[in-house]
Every structure is written in C-alpha cells, then in structure tokens.
C-alpha cells in the first residue's frame, strides 16, 4: 500500500561533503516517487549544496559543521514547521537502498507504528565489514541497551521513519553520532510504538570505525551530566 496521497512524506538527508553521491541518492528517491526532500548540508567544503539544488530539492545549510545529529534536528525543525506527516532519515552517502522506503512505510502503516528503525541484520543483503559485524556493532548494541533499555538488532543505522507524533516528541540534543542512542531512548521514554525493519546497507567505503564508537560512548557519558552540572 502506498502512503496516502494527502500525507506529506519528507525525506531528511544529512550530508557532509557528499558532492559525488548526493545526486545519485536524490534521484534514487525520486524514482520511488518521493518528491519532498530536504538536504541538510552541514557546512560542507565541497559542492554538496549546489549538486542538491540542481535537482530542485530544498537545501538547508549549516554555516559550519555541527555533526549529523545537529543536521537531523535542523531537518526535524523544518519538518515540524511545514507540517510533514511522515519523516524519513536517509543517509547521503548512497549506502541505503531507496526501494526499502515504500516497503518500510507500508509496514509502518500496517502495524500502526510511530517509529521504524532500519536494520542491516534482519536479512542477508548487506555485506558488512568484519570488524563492524563482529566487534563494533555487537558491542555498541549492549552499550545502547545500557543507555536505552532497548536491545535492537542494529545498534547504529541512519535509516529511520517517524510519524508526525514521533516527530513532535523527539528532540535531538546530541550533535554528533550519539544522537542515535538518544533517539532510541526518547522513543522508549515517550512510549512510542516502534519496530525494526530490514534495510540494505551497501559498503563502498568504511564510515565510522572503533574510534567513532568510543567517541559516541564519551558523548553519551558527558551527555548524562550536562543536565546535572
């Protein structure tokens, strides 16, 4: 079942120096009939914004780099303002498969969910590098469990779908990558209905390594205290 015509489905793409890939990502979304797209260019030093504008999508630009979490929250603020009914987080590095979106949306409607988390571990399509598959992600999973009380199959996946209700409740304060854990925590806190859904993640290049994972842990711990001190 396709999303209702009256519903505005907004795709938020956080992008940092993705001039080579952003065009392909946007065209892939167009092919799925997704026309409402906002690229949050996070202070890129390349032509990311220009490439996106050429394809006629909305571009919001951070003057300086603030991190993926910050970019997503900027996208959310925009989505709330224009009254989007459904919001999709979709990475700008061409690792996701846009064909997963319609499937995930109908899954969401069928199950009456507020949030869908993409997972690369629920089918066999993704060729995940060994270190990520065997060490980083399993470890992160348990870290996330400690911080959120949810044990998801995929600890860190940039593919997410939110209902308008979820969009209004969830506010990201972690500017860098720890926002992922923060989102799960808020979903739990606000008793939003969520489920995971299989998505494909292609690996052209590596992305976050062990250092990135440790950085997230540090951010989470510091984050715990920013409200106290």
């Amino acid at each position: 079942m396709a999303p209702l015509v009256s519903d505005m489905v907004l795709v938020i793409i956080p992008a940092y120096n993705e001039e080579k890939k952003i065009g392909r990502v946007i065209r892939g979304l167009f092919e799925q009939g997704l026309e409402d797209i906002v690229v949050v260019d996070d202070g890129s030093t390349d032509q990311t914004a220009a490439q996106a504008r050429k394809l006629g999508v909305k571009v919001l630009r951070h003057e300086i780099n603030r991190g993926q979490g910050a970019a997503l929250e900027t996208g959310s603020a925009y989505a709330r303002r224009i009254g989007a009914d459904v919001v999709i987080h979709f990475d700008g590095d061409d690792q996701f498969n846009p064909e997963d979106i319609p499937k995930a949306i109908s899954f969401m409607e069928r199950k009456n969910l507020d949030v869908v988390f993409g997972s690369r571990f629920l089918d066999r399509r993704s060729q995940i590098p060994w270190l990520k598959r065997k060490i980083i992600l399993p470890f992160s999973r348990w870290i996330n469990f400690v911080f959120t009380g949810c044990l998801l199959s995929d600890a860190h996946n940039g593919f997410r779908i939110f209902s308008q209700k979820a969009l209004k409740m969830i506010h990201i304060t972690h500017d860098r990558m720890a926002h992922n854990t923060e989102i799960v925590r808020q979903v739990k806190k606000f008793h939003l209905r969520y489920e995971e859904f299989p998505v494909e993640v292609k690996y052209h290049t590596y992305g976050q390594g062990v250092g990135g994972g440790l950085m997230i842990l540090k951010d989470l711990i510091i984050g715990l205290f920013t409200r106290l001190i």
Partner: protein
Amino acid sequence: MLPIQILLLAFFAIAIMKVFKRNYTGDLSLWAALFWVLFWVLGGLVVIQPDLTSSLAKLFGVGRGADVVVYLALAGLFFMVFRLMVKIEKLEREITKVVRDKTLK
C-alpha cells in the same frame, strides 16, 4: 611564617575574591561558589598548619601528609577536567542552536 606560605595565602585570598565576584556576576552558581570557597579555605588551613595533612593522612590510612595532598589534588584535577568537558559540551550545543536558528531563518 615562611615566604612561600605568605605567597600561597595571598594567592588563595585572591582566588576566593574571584569566586565571590564570579558568583556576583552570575557566572558561578551558589553551590559552585561555596565549593570553591571551601576548597581554598581548606587549602589555606593546610598552608598555615601543614601538620593537618598528617592527621588527615592517618584518618585516610595514607602514609604521609604530602601524599594526601597529592591524591586530593589529583581528584580535584579530575573533577575540574570533567567539569570543563561538560561545559564545552554545553557551549557546543549553544553554538549549534545559533547555527540552526540562522539556517532556518
């Protein structure tokens, strides 16, 4: 009194004055100010009466007075570094807010 004691006491006195001032201007919360005043006053007591640290050492079961001072100083430093990290995180969030507001304007 040794010159070093006088020097240190003067330094601590200035530190306490700074704490008051920063509390007055609102840069330091009341609790934080109390903590720092207590911290420097205790420091002053130790400078005036170094034997205090020996009693403290006995109390904690640490060998020498000087060791206790080092341990406490280390703990204090950790605490301060940690506070700085939290402070930086807050600053980062404020920067993000400014950047976002400008983006959405």
